[in-house]
């Protein structure tokens, strides 16, 4: 199941618009205190829907447990 090997991570300059929150089918993303989006890596399956939804282009998919 290759999609389980990846997770979404939010990079710098997140505008906290919350588009990724709405796009996530597993409710794995929250906007932390109106500051930036935060991905729960335990829930994330790396489907990439948030990456596509992010208008700022600051979400990338990384191998789970890997270093940024």
């Amino acid at each position, binding site marked *: 199941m290759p999609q389980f090997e990846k997770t979404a991570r939010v990079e710098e300059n997140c*505008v906290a*618009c919350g588009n990724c929150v709405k796009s996530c089918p597993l409710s794995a993303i929250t906007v932390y205190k*109106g500051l930036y989006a935060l991905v729960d890596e335990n829930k994330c399956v790396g489907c990439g829907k948030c990456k596509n*939804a992010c*208008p700022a*282009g600051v979400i990338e998919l990384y191998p789970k447990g890997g270093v940024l």
Partner: protein
Amino acid sequence: MKKRWYDYLWIFSSIYLVLGFFNILFAWLGLICFITPLLISIIGGSKAYCNRYCGRGQLFELLGGRFGLSRKKTPPKFLSSKWFRYSFLTFFMVMFFLIVYSTYLVFAGATLNEAVTLLWVFKLPWQWVNTSFVSPWIAQFAFGFYGVVLTSTVLGPITMLLFKPRSWCVYCPMGTMTQGICKIKHRKG
């Protein structure tokens, strides 16, 4: 996903834009979209307005997403950079204070300027509306504020077409301001 009442706020945004063409005084209603996000961020310390209640964002999502009026390309990085977003916010705020100042001038006796300024430069004559039943300063603020609304209504769809549907969210002055408020609020807390 079950639709909530706030998923239909794009209808409110669309009606608002049209109403301004019938009577400029409806522009005052736009203050709701100006004050509500500020209150949510000041009191609640969140940006819930952006992803839940922003009718304009929903409209872009609908047009760019469902109707396919977007290239769905990632916008250039500078658009989400802090310097650009805060510069754009500063510029917008300066324009807003100029509107407030011109409103004050009319309140103090200056002549009402019946024009809507688009993209901060182009003066669109807007004389077809009868505003004589209110004080001239009320009309002056409406003309100015509707200009700001129309300007963002022109910029938003351009970036929607060129990049992703909700690219406006990246540099939206209200979004930048509410995020800044959240930063200050949570730094203190």
